């Protein structure tokens, strides 16, 4: 299976290269932002040319990055500076900062654009930041080492995963109280809902699995395992995830195995693995879902996946240790 994939990959790469030269893909042009954890910068990529068009110096150890719904502001979680920086995407300048508590890593913005929910690892808290007022309006006590953040499509349920407690905490965004806790596998890193809100996926880096949760109960209804011939089980470490709008396909970044798994999000069967750069961490789909961008921390590049063809079409060199990715809206 591995051999077949590789040959197919190579062929597709060639075909896509030809396609790119022959006719520009129908895809719309988006702006792709990549945070470089070690480079202390944000690389900006044009999704049409697939070239880096700018590199902006930001705070120390930028990890999670989040765009405002209209794409006008980029929130950069500068972990070693213990702040959130706000970049005006038109001028590409940092206009102001928001308080975050120590070591902010991942955040999620309410669909309305306010507030920003940030995992605050040192104090076992999720901080709720009013991005307009520029202050922390609430702290929610959660499990040990809060990490992944997800928001239900209707904005009513915030999910936080805690890496040492190994739970997905369900938080009511009105009352800011925990309503449920669902135990998952070791070191949960990310949480994503399907667009219809009927399923929640939680990746467990050390457990090597993705838990499928029915949020209405809530409980784990299935656990997705991964297997790649010739790759040790320990290297298959699920981290970032993306699910398509139609809820059909789940992409799972598998860290040091340098693979992205494609999963049928209905049957939970793994349909294939894409070979990407080294230590693939986070991912983002373009709004038209034509392309998937993955950040590869060790090879200092971004892999671009043609979603329809299920193949990697380009690697783009970015700054040192790319970590987070955000893509401008339609």
């Amino acid at each position, binding site marked *: 299976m591995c051999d077949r994939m590789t040959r197919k990959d190579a062929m597709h790469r060639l075909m896509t290269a030809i396609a790119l030269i022959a006719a520009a893909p129908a895809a719309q042009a988006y702006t792709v932002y990549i945070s470089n954890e070690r480079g202390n910068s944000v690389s900006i990529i044009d999704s049409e040319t697939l070239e880096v068009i700018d590199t902006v110096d930001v705070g120390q150890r930028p990890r999670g990055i989040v765009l405002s719904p209209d794409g006008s502001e980029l929130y950069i979680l500068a972990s070693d500076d213990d702040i959130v920086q706000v970049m005006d995407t038109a001028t590409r300048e940092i206009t102001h900062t928001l308080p975050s508590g120590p070591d902010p890593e991942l955040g999620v913005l309410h669909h309305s654009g306010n507030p920003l929910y940030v995992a605050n690892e040192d104090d076992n808290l999720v901080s709720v930041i009013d991005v307009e007022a520029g202050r922390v309006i609430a702290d929610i006590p959660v499990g040990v080492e809060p990490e992944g953040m997800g928001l239900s499509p209707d904005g009513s349920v915030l999910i936080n995963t805690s890496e040492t407690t190994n739970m997905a905490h369900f938080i009511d965004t009105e009352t800011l109280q925990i309503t449920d806790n669902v135990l998952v596998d070791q*070191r949960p890193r990310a949480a994503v809902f399907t667009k219809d809100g009927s399923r929640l996926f939680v990746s467990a880096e050390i457990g090597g699995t993705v838990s499928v949760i029915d949020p209405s109960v809530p409980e784990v209804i299935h656990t997705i395992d991964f297997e790649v011939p010739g790759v040790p089980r320990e290297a298959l470490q699920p981290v970032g995830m993306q699910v398509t709008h139609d809820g059909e396909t789940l992409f799972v970044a598998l860290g040091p195995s340098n693979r992205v798994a494609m999963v049928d999000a209905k049957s939970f069967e793994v349909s294939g693995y894409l070979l990407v750069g080294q230590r693939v961490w986070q991912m983002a789909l373009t709004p038209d879902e034509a392309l998937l961008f993955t950040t590869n921390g060790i090879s200092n590049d971004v892999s671009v996946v043609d979603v329809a063809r299920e193949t990697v079409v380009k690697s783009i060199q970015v700054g040192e240790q790319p970590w987070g990715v955000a893509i401008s809206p339609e």
Partner: protein
Amino acid sequence: MRLSGLICALAVAALPASGAVAQSAAVEAAVLRVEHERPLPISRLDLPPEDLGFAGGLLATADNNTTGGFLGQEFKLETVSVAPEAAVEALETLIDGGATFVVTLADAPTTLALAEAAGDRALILNAQAPDMALRGADCRANLMHVVPSRQMLTDALAQFLVWKRWPRWFLIEGSHPEDTALADAYRASAAKFGAQIVETRVFEDTGGARRTDSGLVQVQAQVPVFTQRAPEHDVVVVADESEVFGAYIPYHTWDPRPVAGSVGLTPVIWHPAHEAWGATQLQRRFESAAGRPMREADYAVWMALRVLGEAATRTAATDPAALGDYILGAELELAAFKGQALSFRDWDHQLRQPILLAAGDIVASVSPQEGFVHQVSPLDTLGTDRAESECVTG
């Protein structure tokens, strides 16, 4: 929040043991630290803090209680420091007080005596003794090892040296039994991974005080002489578990060679500079609670009590029998900032784990090294594999 959590744990630890608390659903554990007589460390930077090991236990208990808060589970910890001859008596007091899980910081003979005394009344989690016999001929059904065996540590270093293509070792071993045991482990590792020990010399411990005004002058004169005329070698490997002379070796060898083993590049389970795999989070949590960097003993006790917490979380139980069964079973997996899950080997109750290779102020590498393969887990390239195990109880 963190501080108040710790104060709670402390308050619980200070409660007198009585029947009144025994009926609660709390998981009751203890850390028993046995104070073996040791010389002062060569470097005053290595002087042991008073809360060595205990601070790791308090943090793990606070972590467990944070998680337990979501499940209606409570964890209690008692910490005790005793002389070797009072160890078994202290264990009895702890068991009478309700402790069913006891983390030990003790040498091998004391650890074995404690395991035998505990019998089926308590599970002993060894957080200090690296001796092979405890995992082999002397293994016990109620004895688990969260710290690696000597062989795991020496295999970890050996893999790195072989990967570096530094196969010719000049071995210098101390004159105490534990130094000989460590040197034996290096000999076994060399044979296992294809390195050659081209020369072995024993550094005799002649006793005497550590602090003398002219100490440095003597070291600079003696160590070059002690190490001269060795056959061609790539690296000096030091086996000095008793910490008598190792620190004096680097920079004083006759031939300019890197030094590894008990000094130089050192196999360890924890290092205050370890930052990979989210370890910074544990470092920061520990430092803000304890007011000092985390040491190996703190991490060992943290792991032992997190094993307990993980068992309680996964089984949704707090009764000792259910927890003990889960810990002794094959399902337990622990995330402990080493990039992969740790689990117990069912043949000798040894926790399989990656080993850090520390060099001064940083972590230089982590073993197992790439390319060392195993049919079950790369972690089982370190230490005693199932087929070689002499344990018949585990």
